[in-house]
């Protein structure tokens, strides 16, 4: 693959000490956005067999920033949804850099309801800088689309496994993130706001994004400690970008295991378990 060829070129240019390696949370942010990091399409093509894309929200348009389709994961029929950022310039434009519009969320909702109707589990792969902030998105109810997905996902009677595979950009990520299990890749980040935006607000300078990344506790280990995710999925070598096939295999294993854990659980119990999980999530308060 072209991308992997370029990647090996990069590998041949070791860091010679001119620039210090980024550390801590910021290093994770850079890895999550690494240009050679596998995207949702790359995981789909490696993890699943016979992925069949379905398009359109039946209301307005098809939004390529969110992909949906059915596939088989090692023999299991599953509905897959996920944000796709696009890799080359043309693809990035087409996928709007992975920033969905309302029709993207509504397509995801349609796919999830379809999965529920036919009793198929849902795998949601999160990788977005955030929901698209634009005039058209606002006109068509970006907020309503996200809100509705949260509501619909809370009610689903099939297993829902969500994985943040790269960037989890705020409400635009959460809109496909209400799962029975919420996983994150080792170098994924999931945050209420991007470190740059946080820095611009708090320190008046996006250059302080490193500080903001640290403060926001957006790395996989931090999120696990806060109880925001259930599991951190290992990445190969120095990150998923170093070995796409192995990254997809490890992710496939984790998804398969989480789905297997929900085998035979009835719909009402699945909904109840998801409800209880989110009901107790983020209970960081005292009653004085």
């Amino acid at each position, binding site marked *: 693959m072209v991308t992997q060829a370029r990647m090996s070129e990069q590998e041949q240019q070791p860091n010679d000490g001119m620039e210090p390696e980024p550390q801590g949370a910021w290093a994770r942010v850079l890895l999550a956005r690494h240009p050679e990091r596998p995207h949702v399409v790359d995981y789909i093509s490696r993890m699943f067999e016979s992925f069949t894309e379905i398009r359109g929200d039946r209301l307005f348009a098809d939004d390529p920033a969110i992909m949906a389709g059915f596939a088989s994961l090692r023999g299991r029929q599953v509905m897959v949804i996920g944000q796709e950022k696009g890799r080359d310039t043309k693809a990035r434009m087409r996928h709007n850099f992975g920033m969905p519009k309302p029709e993207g969320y509504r397509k995801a909702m349609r796919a999830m309801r379809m999965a529920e109707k036919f009793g198929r589990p849902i795998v949601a792969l999160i990788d977005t*800088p955030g929901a698209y902030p634009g005039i058209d998105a606002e006109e068509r109810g970006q907020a309503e689309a996200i809100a509705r997905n949260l509501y619909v996902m*809370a009610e689903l009677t099939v297993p829902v496994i969500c994985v943040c595979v790269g960037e989890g950009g705020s*409400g635009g990520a959460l*809109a496909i993130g209400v799962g029975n299990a919420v996983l994150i890749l080792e170098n994924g980040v999931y945050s*209420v706001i991007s470190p740059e935006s*946080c820095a611009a607000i708090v320190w008046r300078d996006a250059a302080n994004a490193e500080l903001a990344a640290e403060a926001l506790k957006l790395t996989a280990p931090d999120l696990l400690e806060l109880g925001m995710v259930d599991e951190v999925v290992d990445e190969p070598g120095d990150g998923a970008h170093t070995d796409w096939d192995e990254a997809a295999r490890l992710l496939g294993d984790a998804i398969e295991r989480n789905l297997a854990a929900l085998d035979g659980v009835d719909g009402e119990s699945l909904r109840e378990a998801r409800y209880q999980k*989110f009901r107790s*999530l983020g209970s960081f308060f005292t009653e004085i």
Partner: protein
Amino acid sequence: MDVAEWYHGGVYCCGAETRIGFVHKDFPESSMAWFRKDSGDGNDQSKVRTEGLWFKCDSCGAIIWKKDLEAAAYVCNRCGFHFKIGARDRLRAFFDNETWEELDTSLRSTDPLQFVDQKPYHERLEAAMAKTGLQDAVVSAEGQVLGRTVIICAMEYSFIGGSMGAVVGEKITRGVERAIGKNAPLIVISASGGARMMEGMVSLVQMAKIASALTRLAGAKLPYISVLTDPTTGGVTASFAMLGDLNIAEPGALIGFAGPRVIEQTIRQKLPKGFQRSEFLVEHGMLDAVVPRADQKAFVARAFDFFCGPIQ
């Protein structure tokens, strides 16, 4: 991408930014105290005296006697501009005899991220508590609306921009559960910049928590009316504020997901006039009605008659 910035030197959150020009300069003393004190960089708009007996309408410039403004529930008697009001003023406008029982008053944030920017978050919290007399950005209450028991959660914009962290999420969720327990309708009155940045992902997941709770309210066939006021943006709009059986808004309120400045920076063009205002949203099918403050109580009471049957 959804970024929120409130005022220079003030406090911030995620979700959307609100421009200073949109905030009424003469916002009532008690509610806007934090804003003036936190504004330290000499902006004129931060220095307006509010102690006087007169208010100036931002929209039409009318000079209104304070007593008249109070009597009109802080709506300009000349142009109908709706001034921002606090959470308890909201309750006063809805509950019979201006009486209610406040719920879950003791919840306080534990600062899950130990967030520090230029100032530790816990200090911002303490300052907001001291200024508003509230523990966080929402007041939940049970009372009577034209003789019917109703649960109302009213957000307090002057508490860190009405932003939603763990306490707001929990209180509104408990409000929903209280409504189910009492077999009562629910009203949530939003005024918020969105999720609270200083609580990070903990604030984001509150969106899912409240949305989940609302599925149970619907399961109990109990009505939920969302009242959106200026401003309602970010993670609050993108969760419970857009999930009412009815979504109604005050005239002229800024309502959206991304804030106007974020959108302008993204698309690099000026936004159309009236963009993301209540009237814009109702035209685009996102609201059932734009209801002036003075008519809201009658509106919700009529709706509850339809949903639940008239009071015997």
